[in-house]
């Protein structure tokens, strides 16, 4: 083959809350571990441009897992998952990241997450500030509410709806090919996953009354949100940042809700200085 991406994909077995999971992950680079968490519904491919960015992988060992039930990470073999309604909980999400990080021997990684991933980062900062070097959260909010999640997993609605709903959440100026790729990934998920992930984001996630306990002197927090984000507006994130003493907030002009993959060049302009800052460059 003329060209390879030099990204390596692997499968690791980890145990989370007494259940074994076969977890797919990709990695590239060397240096400070950078653990990247994808947003709801999709998988680690959202981070493919970060994985392929030599400016980042020359300083960071970038690691991107697919959460169970997402991408190449299958549901667990030992559970009769077909008898349950898939629901991502804060408890599981947190424990998964901790176990995965431990399994790969990651020494105080930087945690970078988009939307539900970003929000999860704040719990990691709150409860395990000694285990992570910094948290970079895209599209973070104190809490979000959605009246009904039923349409996201409905036998009479195809996955085209998930793609269509995501389309208008991105900035119109983001390159079309990346926006198309982004919504393709949203259409490529098992029926129950979107609703199940949204359970975490819209019902389980709530930092009310806890933000003052995040100690940014132990773990720096960077919060970034796109100008066009209709799910989590820049104002939503600014208000959250104001409640976390020492947190840095940046509005990303010209980006929308899928900032992690809708416009890699634009994201890099905001992300790179932060990653350099964390690396002490």
């Amino acid at each position, binding site marked *: 083959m003329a060209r390879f991406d030099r990204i390596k994909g692997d499968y690791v077995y980890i145990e989370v809350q007494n259940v074994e999971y076969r977890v797919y992950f990709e990695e590239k680079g060397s240096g400070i571990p950078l653990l990247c968490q994808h947003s709801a519904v999709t998988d680690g491919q959202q981070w493919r441009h970060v994985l392929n960015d030599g400016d980042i992988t020359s300083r960071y060992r970038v690691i991107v897992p697919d959460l169970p039930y997402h991408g190449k990470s299958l549901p667990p073999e030992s559970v009769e998952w077909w008898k349950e309604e898939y629901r991502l909980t804060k408890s599981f999400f947190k424990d998964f990241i901790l176990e995965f990080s431990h399994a790969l021997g990651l020494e105080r990684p930087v945690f970078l997450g988009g939307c539900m991933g970003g929000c999860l980062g704040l719990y990691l900062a709150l409860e395990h500030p000694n285990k992570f070097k910094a948290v970079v959260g895209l599209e973070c909010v104190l809490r979000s509410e959605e009246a009904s999640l039923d*349409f996201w997993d*409905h036998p*009479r*609605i*195809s996955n*085209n*709806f998930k*793609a*269509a*709903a*995501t*389309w*208008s*959440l*991105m*900035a*119109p*100026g983001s390159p079309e090919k990346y926006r198309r790729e982004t919504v393709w990934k949203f259409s490529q998920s098992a029926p129950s996953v979107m609703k199940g992930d949204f359970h975490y984001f819209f019902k389980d996630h709530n930092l009310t009354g806890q933000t003052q306990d995040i100690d940014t002197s132990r773990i720096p927090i960077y919060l970034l949100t796109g*100008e*066009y*984000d*209709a*799910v989590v*507006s820049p104002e939503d994130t600014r208000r959250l940042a104001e409640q976390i003493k020492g947190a840095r907030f940046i509005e990303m002009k010209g980006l*929308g809700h899928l900032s992690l993959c809708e416009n890699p060049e634009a994201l890099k302009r905001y992300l790179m200085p932060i990653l350099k800052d964390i690396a002490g460059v």
Partner: protein
Amino acid sequence: MKVVFLDSSKVEGLRNAINNDTEFKLAARFMSEDVLLEVDESRCIVKVQDGVVTEIKLNPPSDAYWSFSIKATAESWDKLLQSSPPPFYTGLNAGMMRGNLQIIGNMEVAFAYFWAMNRMLDMMRELQNK
């Protein structure tokens, strides 16, 4: 500026533009629904039969059937139809999430054909800004 789908001199052009759009044709190929569009107190119904817009009916009677409605103020429609729309007006879901438009009626059908509706909005945008 008058909203394009309420302009009797432009609706036929709009109907043709939607029907000629490849993506609309793919997304709407099983769609047979009537969609009400509301701009303040003004209304029109986009009639779709087997994926083809057969008519855009202005000022329909109050008891006309429709399966779902896309409703917004004139001010919101103005922003939704800008060639480079501002934040929170970039499409139907963005507009809905921020309360800038409402989708009322048979939500299941509206969401099943959401892609087709986004394309219809794109065609409206193109013609609005010609």
